[in-house]
């Protein structure tokens, strides 16, 4: 057997890949239980309609149909629990608030019959006035929810965040800067379009009620099994440990599975009623309207500064589309935008974002969640400002960075403490890697030939690795799900008598490679081969608490907890080894799956010897307890603030508007790195999704509330064929808020990558005087921008 020993920073191939590549990974839809029934939903075709009649007689008469449930059947369970509670979703509706809202659930012997029965249910609707456009919704001409005075359900404002007097002072400073004769202000209204998260595995949930013990086993493709278990326990009036939630193989989440869904409660309800396991597998087309969407902002960004590039004030005001309901974090997503809204810069910043409900599917976290939107606006307007004053955008950036001596714990203009940063070094490293001056010369030469070539830059800062469990005091708890905190990390490390190690974590991968990186963390401390480490995740009965995998938090928070637990195990193992080797514990060294005495490598014992002793208490020295394991719950002092600089080079076909992405160069800084290959993989995927937003993807609702891009024929995802080879590198600025120094990298690629492309496209179109183009920069839109500029 191979024995791979790896410390932090080692490239280790992903242990999970053989099962994934050979099709042996077991997803929820692969699980088949005896007597299992299947659910299908009847969904409203209208964005706003009252159900006046449901005729299920034909469906109920079909062979293999067990039950049809409607709103009346599940009203007693209450509304869907959500963390930020503003407009909670009913489990099944009497009045549909978006196309795709579920009005009935069918349970049948198989998924095909369930679908036939769903198609045979006749629903009559009284169609009501609807509003699917967030800007229109903000005028309150049509209210989305009865009994609410406004569609604007919440506003987030800063900075400083939460300081009214400070905000007034900031606004005054910016207004005065604008009035000065020597300043320039650039303002642009921009759309950050809605996206469909589109994990390769749509959601799937299987509930198995055990009436004898009054408990649920619940299998779900979720990023947050503990919150889901808590929500089911609360909804059904059960103790927390009567619900075992398992999320063992999750095929991508991107935030869309960072949600508790009504269908998860409904299959539990059906399983309890029918005394059968009940499964629901979402179809791709269904996912468009039953899984949360992301982004969806219309806002105006304004940048004021001097002609020599000193930024004196930044404003961002606009509306953010919540969709019809608030689910887990829906209304908090714009807050994450405010959080990072001033980016890497020190200029006074004022941001106000109104959260607006519309008759569309709910939005929530999608990779980056508020941060890609905020950084998009900032980096686009900064670029436009640089163009206006005719200064190189790299120089404007460098001139306005928060300086290195402000760290650690630099206070951003929005009022938040930023852990560590070294922005100028990172920018310069990117420019050197790209040969920026050479690239500009190439662009100018191409332009002289009449070709439309453009370079786009973007700096970015992210806030992630949540985080301090003290965020509970700011309202970010998960008490609605019965959990003590939305933000702590959990790690259990246990050594078995044969010297192998099991690690239990409260976070779970949806493709991030935890099986590999966690084994590396253990191997780093204990010098055991990663093949000897089993990593258990996604099981609420194995891990006492667990928050889940989202917000680029797993390594920084749960990884750190594991790191600390492994350190404790090592300390105890050193004592045990010292006892066996008749040496002092401080002289024990671990290497190659063994412990030896420093300076005497042949004076050694194996991990099996050590662990065997731990489980034979009679042999232990006096005062030592048996067992060899440790459990740590960790809360970092702060969130982490990764950052980076990305550059895109594009060429546009002037005759068609087709944009070709020629090169993409990224210089990221996510602090210390556990596995460079996995970090690069995260950046690759993140960039693909940012490029997807910039060039291809858009969830398009028509005026009647229909989602026109509900299938992958019309929702254009980037494929490998559409992307160049990304050129990646990194700088390393460790964080000081966790013992590993890691910051997190799950979302960085996405946060950094949409705006350099749009900046590059605008740069390419600058000969026409084009100042802005909204995403996605599809050929049609680019061509129309050229035509409009030519006509103007």
């Amino acid at each position, binding site marked *: 057997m191979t024995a791979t020993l790896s410390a932090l920073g080692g490239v280790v191939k992903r242990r999970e890949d053989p099962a994934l590549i050979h099709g042996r990974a077991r997803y929820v839809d692969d699980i088949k239980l005896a007597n299992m029934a299947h659910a299908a939903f009847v969904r409203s075709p209208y964005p706003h309609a009252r159900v006046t009649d449901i005729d299920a007689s034909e469906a109920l008469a079909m062979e293999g149909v067990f039950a049809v449930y409607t709103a009346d059947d599940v009203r007693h369970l209450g509304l869907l629990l959500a963390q930020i509670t503003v407009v909670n979703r009913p489990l099944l509706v009497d009045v549909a608030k978006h196309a795709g809202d579920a009005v009935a659930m069918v349970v049948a012997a198989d998924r095909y019959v369930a679908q036939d029965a769903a198609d045979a249910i006749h629903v009559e609707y009284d169609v009501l006035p609807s509003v699917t456009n967030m800007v229109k919704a903000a005028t309150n001409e049509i209210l989305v929810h009865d009994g609410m005075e406004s569609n604007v359900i919440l506003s987030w404002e800063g900075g400083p965040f939460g300081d009214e007097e400070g905000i007034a002072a900031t606004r005054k400073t910016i207004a005065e800067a604008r009035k000065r004769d020597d300043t320039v202000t650039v303002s642009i209204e921009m759309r950050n379009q809605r996206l469909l998260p589109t994990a390769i595995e749509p959601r799937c949930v299987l509930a198995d009620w055990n009436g004898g013990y009054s408990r649920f086993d619940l299998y779900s493709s979720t990023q947050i099994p503990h919150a889901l278990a808590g929500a089911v326990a609360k909804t059904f009036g059960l103790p927390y440990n009567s619900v075992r939630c398992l999320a063992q193989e999750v095929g991508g989440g991107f935030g869309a599975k960072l949600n508790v869904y009504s269908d998860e409660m409904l299959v539990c309800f059906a399983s309890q009623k029918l005394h059968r396991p009940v499964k629901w597998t979402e179809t791709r087309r269904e996912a468009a309207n039953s899984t949360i969407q992301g982004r969806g902002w219309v806002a105006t960004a304004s940048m004021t500064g001097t002609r020599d590039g000193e930024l004196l004030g930044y404003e961002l005001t606009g509306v953010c589309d919540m969709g019809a309901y608030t689910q887990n974090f829906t209304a908090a997503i714009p807050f994450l935008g405010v959080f990072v809204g001033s980016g890497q810069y020190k200029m006074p910043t004022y941001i106000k974002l109104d959260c607006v409900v519309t008759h569309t599917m709910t939005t929530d976290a999608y990779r980056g969640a508020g941060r890609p939107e905020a950084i998009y606006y900032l980096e686009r307007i900064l670029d436009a400002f640089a163009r206006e004053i005719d200064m190189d955008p790299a120089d404007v950036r460098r001139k306005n960075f928060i300086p290195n001596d402000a760290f650690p714990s630099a206070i951003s203009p929005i009022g938040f403490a930023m852990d560590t940063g070294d922005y100028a070094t990172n920018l310069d490293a990117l420019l050197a890697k790209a040969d920026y001056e050479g690239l500009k010369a190439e662009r100018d030469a191409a332009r002289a030939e009449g070709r439309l070539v453009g370079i786009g830059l973007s700096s970015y800062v992210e806030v992630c690795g949540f985080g301090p469990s003290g965020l509970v005091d700011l309202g970010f708890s998960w008490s609605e799900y019965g959990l003590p905190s939305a933000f702590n990390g959990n790690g259990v490390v246990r050594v078995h008598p044969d010297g192998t190690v099991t690690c239990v974590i409260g976070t779970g991968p949806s493709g991030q490679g935890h099986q590999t990186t966690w084994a590396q963390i253990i191997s780093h401390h204990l010098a055991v081969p990663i093949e000897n480490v089993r990593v258990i995740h996604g099981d609420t009965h194995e891990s006492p608490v667990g928050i889940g995998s989202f917000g680029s938090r797993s390594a920084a928070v749960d990884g750190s907890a594991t790191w600390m637990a492994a350190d404790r195990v090592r300390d105890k193992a050193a004592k045990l080894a010292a006892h066996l080797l008749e040496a002092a514990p401080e002289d024990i060294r671990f290497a190659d799956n063994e412990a030896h005495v420093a300076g005497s490598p042949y004076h050694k014992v194996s991990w099996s010897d050590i662990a065997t002793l731990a489980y034979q208490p009679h042999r232990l020295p006096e005062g030592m307890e048996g067992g060899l394991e440790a459990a740590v719950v960790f809360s970092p002092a702060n969130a982490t603030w990764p950052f980076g600089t990305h550059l895109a080079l594009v060429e546009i076909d002037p005759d068609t508007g087709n944009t*070709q992405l020629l090169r993409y160069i990224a210089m990221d800084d996510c602090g210390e790195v556990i596995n460079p290959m996995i970090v690069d993989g995260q950046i690759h995927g993140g960039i693909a999704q940012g490029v997807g937003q910039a060039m291809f993807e858009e969830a398009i609702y028509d005026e009647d509330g229909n989602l026109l891009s509900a299938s992958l024929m019309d929702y254009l995802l980037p494929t490998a064929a559409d992307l160049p080879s990304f050129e990646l590198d990194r700088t390393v600025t460790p964080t000081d808020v966790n013992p590993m120094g890691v910051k997190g990298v799950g979302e960085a690629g996405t946060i950094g990558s949409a705006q350099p492309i749009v900046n590059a496209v605008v740069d390419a179109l600058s000969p026409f005087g084009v100042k802005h183009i909204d995403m996605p920069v599809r050929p049609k839109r680019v061509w129309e921008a050229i035509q409009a500029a030519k006509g103007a």
Partner: protein
Amino acid sequence: MYPRAFDYVAVASIDEAIEALASHPGAKVMSGGMSLIPMMKLRLLSPETVIDIGKVPGLDQIEDGGDHISIGALVTHGAIVASSLLRAEATALVQAASWTGDVQVRNRGTLCGALAHADLAADSPAAVLALGATMIAQGPGGTREIAAADFFVDTLQSALTPDEVLVGLRIPKRGGGSAYDKLGRRGGHSDYAVAGVAAWVSMSGGVVSDCGVALTGVGTKPAMATAVMEALRGSGPDGVEAAASHATDGVTVLEDLYGSEAYKAHLARVYTARAVQQAMAAAS
């Protein structure tokens, strides 16, 4: 993604397929299934019977017939891309096939299946139109030939009658050169055509002696651009732009998520010029 129940009949010969079509009204014929199965899964189409001709022997051949090339009903897009004979004699078709779907679709999907499906934005129909192909349909009364120009009747509607199977096509070896160019939905050549144009030209004395030009993705069906062809005949490379300006004469341009009428009409002209120029370069 759960189709309604249907009967599945795998036939061993075209005669069996025709018998099965006669005895199962409303049945659909399937070869690669790359269009039919997704439509069934979305319940946009729910045939009671699917007749699978995929296992019929002898239909997967590309044959040199001297003055023409025969392509059997089960020849995949991938096989077309790999054919050196077609690359030399029907470049436009090879290019169209190479930009159809992805590798998996090209390895399973068939040219004849795609033609019978008659999608208004598919690539291959434009190529077979421009190349002057002849479709061979077989029904209870025997076989009949249908000129490509008469084959595409409307959106998702071919000239095949419900009791017929498209068993193959012939592409004439007329010399000259051909090309297909397009703008795909995801830009470049990626995905369905926002606008795609195939051109075949035969040159004589520096001018076009004969030609075929066809559009896809622009109107309600893939169609010959007859006004372009008329303008091209007798003109040289400097006449291409003027000829291309007629690209959408008589065509009802359909607006969609990827282009307004004005944009798609513009693209039709741009890609007509590009395809014709490439075909001329190949012809000389």
